[in-house]
């Protein structure tokens, strides 16, 4: 087991929060993990990105050393907005998957036709739960339930159970289609 994940979005969308959920799920499964985040100025609506590297310390594959993901090496790009895909597209390996939240703002989203991009409207289920800010967690629930993550939806729910935010479990579940 080895997975390199990029999570991208804009300031305030919850990239860092998703990163914590994903890394905790990895630890729960006794996997080795490390992550690197880029934020700061970005919290005012600019790009925020995190790089997560997960591997099984018991397997024979090489461990990861460096914090950033090399171009052409990411297995998965989880993007919280269509415009947050292009700056990180070059990191994706051939056959890598992009899971992207559909934008609530119409008009200026880039068009994609590639087969490995999966759009999912996480906003509507989040709004239904009464908090549009939960769209990030809904999208993660979707990715896990479709089998794109190193861990299962149940693993993420176990992490959510340990948190102080009761809405997380519902939000993860709302991503199951």
């Amino acid at each position: 087991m080895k997975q390199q994940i990029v999570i991208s979005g804009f300031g305030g969308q919850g990239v860092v929060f998703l990163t914590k959920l994903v890394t905790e799920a990895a630890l729960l499964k006794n996997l080795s993990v490390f992550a690197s985040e880029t934020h700061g100025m970005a919290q005012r609506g600019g790009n925020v990105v995190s790089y997560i590297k997960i591997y099984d310390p018991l397997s024979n594959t090489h461990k990861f050393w460096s914090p950033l993901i090399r171009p052409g090496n990411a297995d998965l790009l989880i993007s919280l907005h269509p415009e947050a895909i292009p700056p990180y597209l070059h990191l994706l390996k051939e056959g890598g998957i992009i899971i992207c939240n559909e934008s609530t703002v119409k008009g200026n989203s880039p068009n994609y036709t590639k087969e490995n991009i999966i759009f999912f409207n996480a906003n509507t289920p989040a709004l239904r739960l009464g908090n549009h800010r939960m769209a990030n967690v809904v999208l993660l629930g979707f990715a896990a339930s479709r089998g794109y993550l190193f861990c299962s939806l149940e693993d993420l729910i176990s992490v959510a159970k340990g948190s102080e935010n009761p809405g997380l479990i519902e939000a993860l579940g709302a991503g199951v289609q």
Partner: protein
Amino acid sequence: MKELTSNETSTLFMLGNEAIVRAALESGVRFVSAYPGTPSSEIIDRMYEIRRETGVRVEYAANEKVSMETAAAVAMCGVRSLCSMKHVGLNVAADAFMTLAYVGVKGGMVIVTADDPSLHSSQNEQDNRFYAKMALVPMLEPATPHEAYEMVKEAFEISEKYGTPSIVRTTTRINHARGVVKVGEYRKIEGEIKGVFDKDPFRYVVVPMVGRRLRVELLERLRKLEEVSEKSSFQIIRGKGTLGIITSGVSYLYVEDAVRDLGILEKVKILKLGMTFPIPRKLLQDFLSEVESVLVVEELEPYLEEAIRIVAQESKWAGKIAGKEYIPRAFELNVPLVRAAISRFWGISYKPRYEAISPSVLPRELPQRPPNLCPGCPHRATYHEIKRIFGSEALYPTDIGCYTLGLLPPLSMADFLICMGSSVSTAGGFSVAQDRPVIAFVGDSTFIHAGIPALINSVFHDHSFLLVILDNSTTAMTGHQPHPGASMTREGLCEPKVRIEEIVRACGAKAVEIINPIQVKRSCETISSLRDSMEKNPGVYVLISRSPCPLLERRIVKKARRIVFRVNETCDGCVRCLGELACPAFYKEGDRVQINPLMCIGCSVCAQICKSIKPVKLH
């Protein structure tokens, strides 16, 4: 967050900055002071959050110089202290730092300086390793959160044993990396934070005759620290090859990946320096004697490279040394850059699937996403109002904070900036040397940090400008830290300890006006009358534009949104609202302007500018 204060030895997953917090707690730190700054802010923020549990006294300082001096006095009483700052913070604290190295400390004192290669959130990238070399202060440079943890503990030990402050120099990739940290036991220290200050004025009062003696002692201490560096367990040698690589910090991790990509793991010998001041010269000599050539892999300046060239010259080592002609000097490194450098230096062929790119230079066709003032941000209203009265012709020195984003079009309300507080002093200079009216912008926290002496200076010298203090009652950009003039903290509303208007009046400003920028018409009238006064009677005028940061206000007051605004059918598509306000909640659909109801916070500024924008009640 409970993990940070857990008692037992365990394996935790933490942010580099949290690892620094944990190490300081285990080392018995009792006092922490800092002015926030990315990427160091989480150190003081976490310390602040757990201050009651830990009994550590945590102070958000007015600026970095103040934080260092306060922490130094605490350490002088034999109580362990820590101060953290971003790289440019050490510039502010440099005056204290240089002579504190002479005087030394009694209890352990650690200074964390967080460099920001690639300028993710800074005005420059500077290599603070040179500060250690300039002040002759020991320095440790971690590569991972776990190393940051170990090195902070070691830094406290070295500091106390040798009576000197220690530096732990991080970069963004350590501060904001999350990794596994094996922590040790932590026991809360009970009781008051009290040590003893032993009077010794001929040691602690640095007049020339004392300084001369301390200078000699400093050099004696340096010799002892050189021995520490030679024997430090943080100087790690890996591999048995003849191709030598010398590196430090996060660059080491890039090297490890790069040599594997290139398949030359058996051919290289890597020296990873963890203690990078003083330089371990004997260790370097020995390393050089075992390899044929050396590539120095380090971010930013050729700090190690220069030291290694000196050691090579001293030991008459004749192999080839390469550094900055292969490794970029600007911006962060990454594996592809390091791999390309190694491949080029030793002629090792490697066909990458992708070319090495510097992350700071994105291909031109990709959309850039600049940061922006939030929907409902009062700074946007202030900029709109000032521009309406003074126009684009006026000269607008600005300062460091969220409001620096006023630089971007269509607001375009920033003309000059170099550092914290520079808005005020440069406004004075501009008013002397050119004829445009000068209007300077500074945030509340930044004004307190470095604006006050500049304001006094301008009053003293009869400069002529309007200083606009954008008072949102918090240090917003770095994560809503409190400051002496703030009326709200993450824990709730409070009375400001220091009133900015009183400071400004005491400094001698000709007139001080306070507006709430959300009230557009009234604010414009005040600004307009200030302009008239300035024309009649030039001098230093101050406008305090006061309205709380809505991000923080919503979080602490927990007030639900009652209204949002929408554009009705009478919109003629003039897009004046887009051009003048640039609120991120606005978007254009066909000929009509729309407002995203999820983003609008109901501030009402737009509705005061355009009659087609009307409130909608939320249920």
